[in-house]
């Protein structure tokens, strides 16, 4: 999901404390927020935009491209299905601790309607100087600056660290995509890598992954076909084993999902894998030598 200044954005849960605070930040940054949803406050104005009873109603009244949800876990399924039914191009789900069964319903409906889902459990996405969705510090000029490095991250805090390192070294971002830390997510590492690769202004990509699942291994398959350099960091190499991944879950993934499996797959695809985050800038300079 790459957000543009021309994209119309709906905020579901706009009247809550977090919804209000981050809607104001998004608006200040230039994100084109056109409406908000809260069934109990339909017909009012909040953060300078109309509040409707549903995403379907917002689509009829003002139209929108993307919806971002500031909604508590047990209510996300209803809100996301509403946005999907309304015909959103994409839905950004920030909430953590949504029951997996609800997430599966959302993913199934999104697939049927061809709707992109970002998250759940993501900090959002940023396109410097254009707009952002979620709660990333896009407005902090030490962390985000328009440039040529695409960054994707499962974790918001670690993604922020890499954005900061990139900017303090004199680079900037083409876009940042937070894909989220849940086991089932709509936009995978591979999807985000492809989206960043296809942006003409992207010259190199930093991928920030984590142990568990097979997403980095899948992304490695795509990375092998790319001309642009990819640099990766995988968090959790020192995490103790025994986080219960479900006995049968381990069957399907075989020995994938470990730090070693991810690192091997990425290196075989020509990706530079960092030992620690501090190495990012030197490797970026080296890999971009003669390109940027």
């Amino acid at each position, binding site marked *: 999901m790459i957000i543009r200044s021309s994209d119309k954005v709906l905020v579901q849960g706009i009247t809550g404390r977090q919804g209000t605070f981050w809607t104001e930040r998004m608006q200040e940054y230039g994100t084109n927020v056109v409406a908000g949803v809260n069934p109990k406050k339909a017909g009012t104005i909040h953060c300078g935009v109309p509040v409707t009873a549903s995403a379907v109603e917002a689509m009829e009244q003002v139209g929108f491209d993307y919806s971002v949800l500031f909604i508590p876990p047990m209510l996300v399924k209803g809100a996301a299905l509403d946005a999907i039914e309304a015909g959103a191009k994409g839905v950004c789900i920030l909430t953590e*601790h949504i*029951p997996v069964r609800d997430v*599966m319903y959302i993913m*199934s409906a999104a697939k049927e309607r061809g709707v992109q889902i970002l998250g759940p459990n993501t*900090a959002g996405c940023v396109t410097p100087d254009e707009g952002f969705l979620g709660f990333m510090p896009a407005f902090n000029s030490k962390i985000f600056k328009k440039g040529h490095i695409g960054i994707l*991250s499962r974790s918001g805090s670690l993604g922020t660290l890499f954005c900061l390192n990139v900017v303090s070294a004199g680079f900037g971002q083409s876009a940042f995509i937070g894909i989220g830390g849940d086991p089932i997510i*709509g936009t995978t590492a591979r999807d985000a890598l492809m989206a960043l690769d296809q942006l003409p202004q992207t010259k190199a990509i930093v991928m920030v992954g984590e142990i568990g699942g097979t997403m980095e291994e899948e992304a490695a398959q795509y990375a092998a076909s790319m001309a642009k350099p990819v640099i990766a960091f995988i968090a959790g*190499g020192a995490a103790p084993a025994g986080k219960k991944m*479900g006995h049968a879950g381990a069957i399907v993934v075989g020995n994938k999902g470990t730090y070693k499996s991810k690192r091997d797959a990425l290196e075989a695809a020509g990706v530079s894998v960092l030992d620690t985050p501090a190495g990012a800038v030197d490797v970026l300079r080296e890999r971009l030598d003669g390109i940027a």
Partner: protein
Amino acid sequence: MNFAEHAAKPLLREVGIATPEGHLATNPEHAAEIAQTLGPCVVKAQVPTGKRGKAGGIKLVDGADAAATAARDIIGMEIAGHTVDTVLIEQQVAIKAEYYAAVLTNAISKGALMLFSTEGGMDIEEVAANTPEKLLQLEIDINHGAAIADVRQMLSLAELGEAEPEIAQTLCRLYEVFTRYDAELVEVNPLVVTRDDQIIALDCKFSMDDSAIARQPEIAASGSGEKLSQLEVRGVELGLKYIELDGDVGIIANGAGLTMTTMDVVSFYGGRPANFLEIGGDAYTKAKPALELVLSNPSVKSLVVNFCGAFARCDVMTQGIIDAWLELKPEIPVFFSIHGTGDVEAVAMLKQRMDMEPFSDMDSASKAAVEAARQ
């Protein structure tokens, strides 16, 4: 949240999957009484983990005395960190065929996955690794559910003969358990066909999605909570994500990804983390109780504080740490790395109140903490 076998089996019976007749016992005398009424039976350790058989926690017995002896052996046993305090005593069944069946969440298809194998009773990971063709798989879209026709098509490769329609029905019921009770995994190994052609689940493993516990309070009450150390229990009470580890370098950072990475960096420089503790999200105002918690582990010899503020503000987090530090006056060295939202204020505060400068990045702060812990 994992469930012990005796807590998982009622969920199967709820949807019409049969299980052997059995009862729980917590002492040998009671085990003997139960065995008296059941005839030849099996005595099984009730702990929420697999590989109980390999650990000696499952015994076939005939008669009350044998059941009492088995119960005496098994009760008190340690299996994968769990102490056995209860055994399940079940009637033996005459087995004609043994199968493996499971339904679980699948990140790749973003839906449910049904698994079936004719290699029942075996270690299924070995089956998957050595003879993957014997592990049949069916992806299920939750909006369409488990269609009997699709299940039978999957099973056609297993050549089950006359039992096939009823096994297909049982798998659909297993899928019902999966959705109705918010499972991450429900597994029956073995699922057996008896000599008189009944289909019975001899064992059951059930793991509930932790995010669904709040809406399944009655079912979740019979699950086995995670085993926590005293400090971890304190962390839960404080609303902090704290995991106690066996090293000596204490860690406080914001956000799960950054905290995990701080552990990685400490390990990369040859150190051993004493804990995982993140104060991101709404917990970023809890820096003070967080520091108290980390310091109450007597193994901690040095501390890394690594903040990269986005939503969480560095000034608020740093202020909490400084307040607690000046109050507790710990005698261990501390190493800071502070960047992002509110960093200028935080760095000034650190200089003014503790006369300290943060390190330029987390690598140098972590490295210094590792060296200090060695001394």
